[in-house]
């Protein structure tokens, strides 16, 4: 469903085109948008500073570039978000692992 809507939007031209349009969707998958939105919402609400997040994002990007791993920008974003959430004591790595495993097994 979402995919159809996206294709329809992507095909809109001229005045009907969305302002994001320059031939490229903002997010390639819905989870990328969620990871983006969660990070920025936390900053807006003052839970942590942008710098706290950004230095971790830089570190994550640097790490994959040094190891030649797959770049996958929003995976790096998500990893940085996890780090800052754990470092600031918002969540523990363990509860995140457990919930991810639960989602993986229940779908």
């Amino acid at each position: 469903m979402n995919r159809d809507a996206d294709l329809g939007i992507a095909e809109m031209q001229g005045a009907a085109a969305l302002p994001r349009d320059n031939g490229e969707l903002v997010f390639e998958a819905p989870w990328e948008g969620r990871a983006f939105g969660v990070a920025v919402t936390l900053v807006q609400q003052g839970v942590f500073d942008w710098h706290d997040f950004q230095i971790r994002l830089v570190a994550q990007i640097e790490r994959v570039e040094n190891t030649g791993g797959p770049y996958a920008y929003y995976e790096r974003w998500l990893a940085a978000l996890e780090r800052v959430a754990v470092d600031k004591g918002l969540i523990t790595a363990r509860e995140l692992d457990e919930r991810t495993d639960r989602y993986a097994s229940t779908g």
Partner: protein
Amino acid sequence: MSDDHNAGHPDHDAGPPPHDAGHHGKPEPYPALRARALESLLVDKGLISTDAVDALVQAYEQDIGPLNGAKVVARAWVDPAYKARLLEDGTQAIADLGFEGLEGSEIVVLENGPTVQNVVVCTLCSCYPWPVLGLPPSWYKSPAYRSRVVIEPRVVLREFGLELDDDVEVRVWDSTADVRYLVLPERPAGSDRLDEPALTELVTRDSMIGVARATLPEARS
């Protein structure tokens, strides 16, 4: 907004598995599952609301994009006083048109001219003037662009289809979390009779990053 319940569905993961699976000695969970788990934990703890995240994502998908920057550029082209303010204090002049930053970072506007081509990059990650351009295109985030545009900007610009005369100076600006750059492209020759809304349509995202010119529609291939 009940859509978000499928937001983390892993159906896009039908492709090959991530290459770093097993990097930590155990199978890597899908990023979609992990993003959903992270969001739901933060919601459970009362740190964010799903509605707030929905609203933010929707704003970036639908409202905040290069059109904001195009309006800034078109105003500068028709209003010399505005242009002077924009070049002196970009953050404030952009806020005057209603576009404000999310992170309190400064936006500096760089004017291109017949002998100067300003180009913007973020060598460390993906810093970008969100309020006026939305989120960056994938090439802006790519390791190739981030490293090469600094080393061989003319070659990279040529690959974007931008041929520059030898007397044009290329200035590459490296964005940071504190300072983001917006390029003010040259107003295209032959656009004298266009009004501000029509001029807005000439301003592309790429021209505001500095890897293209603003052109009349008939000049585009």
